[in-house]
């Protein structure tokens, strides 16, 4: 549905050149919810605004629904933009218009007839759960409600793609969840492709199928969300994953567990799918005669797949501990990282 080839964006001023984006290659399939995450200043906003050419790329192609937007005339671009909905962090609703008139705005631009606009507004407001607010003004609504109006407006011309520019960043966690639910719902009901940028890994975890991690204007890593959570390769990705699943232990734990006996190990185990439900630990205790101390545990769901993280301290006979860890490492769908121990083996997995 969306293909970005070798996109580059450079800001030039008299004194200097700032490279905002470089060598961006992305492919987004129809019906996907694709997340782009990155720290602030990474170029996320520039990237999503290149998708409807609010920012003009310095070089590279933006192909949406088979059409290369960078090659269109101004007039053709305006028509193409009607097929691409967009919502914003600050909602950007017209304050002088009521909710219904805001939703009508893109329909007016498209030259739709009055009675068609009217029936469309009703349908859209019903979809976003604001049918009773049609005659209110944006200033009378809460942030979450305003974003719902933004979504209804973005969907008015039945676009194939919805771009979300930090759409939940100014909302509280509860409202964020309700907006994400709505986006998921729309994605399933209408089959619309959603591209969203965010600096919150929670958002990615909640609704995205695929994710690209942007750092300093380049894509550091991309793939299925579950893979990135389980197996982050880049430092920046690890930081984001940790933000959601924080298995960092306070320092005093690091010293007490293994140094006390000299035979202990600290191990972080990530489970995925069915393995999250197995009685792994108790099996190990029985088999290898070791002591296991659970220091941290968490189980989560990403895209409907169970995903667990466990940090355990293992104490016992040195050889037994080693073998126990080896057994863990050999398991499918389990990733083991030895944080501290007699045999410091990192990132085996």
């Amino acid at each position, binding site marked *: 549905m969306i293909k970005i080839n070798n996109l580059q964006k450079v800001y030039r001023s008299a004194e200097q050149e700032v490279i905002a984006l470089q060598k961006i290659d992305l492919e987004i399939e129809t019906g996907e919810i694709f997340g782009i995450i990155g720290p602030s200043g990474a170029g996320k906003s520039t990237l999503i605004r290149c998708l*409807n050419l*609010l920012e003009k790329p310095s070089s590279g192609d933006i192909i949406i629904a088979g059409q290369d937007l960078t090659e269109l005339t101004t007039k053709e671009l*305006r*028509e*193409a*933009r*009607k097929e*691409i909905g*967009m919502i*914003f962090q*600050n909602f*950007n*609703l*017209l*304050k*002088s*218009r009521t909710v219904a008139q805001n939703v009508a*705005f*893109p329909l*007016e*631009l*498209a030259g739709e007839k009055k009675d068609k606009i009217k029936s469309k507004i009703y349908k859209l407001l019903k979809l976003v759960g604001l049918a009773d607010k049609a005659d209110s*003004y*944006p*200033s009378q609504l809460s942030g979450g409600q305003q974003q719902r109006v933004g979504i209804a*407006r973005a969907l008015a*011309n039945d676009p194939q793609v919805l*771009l979300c520019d930090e759409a939940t960043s100014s909302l509280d966690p509860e409202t964020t969840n309700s907006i994400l639910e709505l986006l998921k719902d729309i994605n399933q009901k209408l089959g619309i492709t959603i591209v969203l940028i965010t600096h919150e890994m929670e958002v990615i975890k909640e609704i995205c199928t695929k994710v690209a991690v942007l750092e300093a204007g380049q894509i550091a890593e991309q793939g299925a969300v579950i893979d990135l959570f389980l197996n982050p390769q880049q430092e920046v990705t690890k930081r984001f994953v940790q933000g959601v699943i924080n298995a960092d232990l306070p320092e005093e734990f690091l010293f007490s567990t293994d140094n006390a006996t000299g035979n202990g190990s600290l191990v972080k185990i990530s489970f995925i799918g069915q393995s999250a439900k197995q009685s792994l630990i108790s099996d190990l205790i029985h088999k290898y005669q070791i002591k296991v101390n659970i220091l941290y545990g968490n189980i989560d769901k990403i895209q409907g797949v169970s995903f667990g993280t466990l940090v355990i301290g293992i104490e016992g006979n040195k050889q037994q501990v080693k073998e126990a860890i080896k057994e863990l490492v050999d398991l499918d769908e389990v990733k083991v990282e030895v944080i501290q121990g007699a045999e410091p083996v990192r990132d085996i997995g």
Partner: protein
Amino acid sequence: MQNLLEILVSDSELLWGGLQETIYMVGLSMVISTFFGLLLGVGVVVTEKDNLLENKYINFVLSIIINVVRSIPFIILMVAIIPFTRLLVGTSIGTEAAIVPLTVAAIPFTGRIVESAIKEVDQGIIEAAQAMGATSWEIIIKVLIPEALPSLILGLTITAITLVSFSAIVGAVGGGGLGDIAIRYGYQRFQTDVMLKTVLLLIVMVQGLQGFGNWLAAKVDHK
């Protein structure tokens, strides 16, 4: 008591005529200058760098027009454009003739007021409209002006009040209206009561305009 009432109602025909002339002058120059002032003000904003219709030449010319005309004191402007006034209305004396300098002075004034009102419109809203495929013209008509409307109304109220005061100046050179009456009767003939009554009328007029402007601005403001 009898006396006071007599004084109040005396010259009422004269004053009524003057009031009508003032309303006519201010009203007509207001309508014309609002039209051109909108063009000028919107024009100067949208031709700015990185704006909808960026054009540094047009922007330069429009800024010059606004600043040059505004820097000429009204009484000098009025005299300086007498040939232009003659060309337009055939005479330089009377109410019709007064409307020309009033309008010429009010256009750049309004232009600046429109400019600052339009600049207040949130850039994000303009961007949203662009993302929906709006043309520059549609953005001006459907976004910039409606969104700036409360500020525009308050700004235009200032223009109207300034025009009331300018209209008293044109009165001094035979333009008619309340200013004319105040000068001729109040000043030259020492009829202090007439002078006071014109001032009173002007105060009521300005109060009325400001009150109406505030009311209207509040009515269209949904921020």
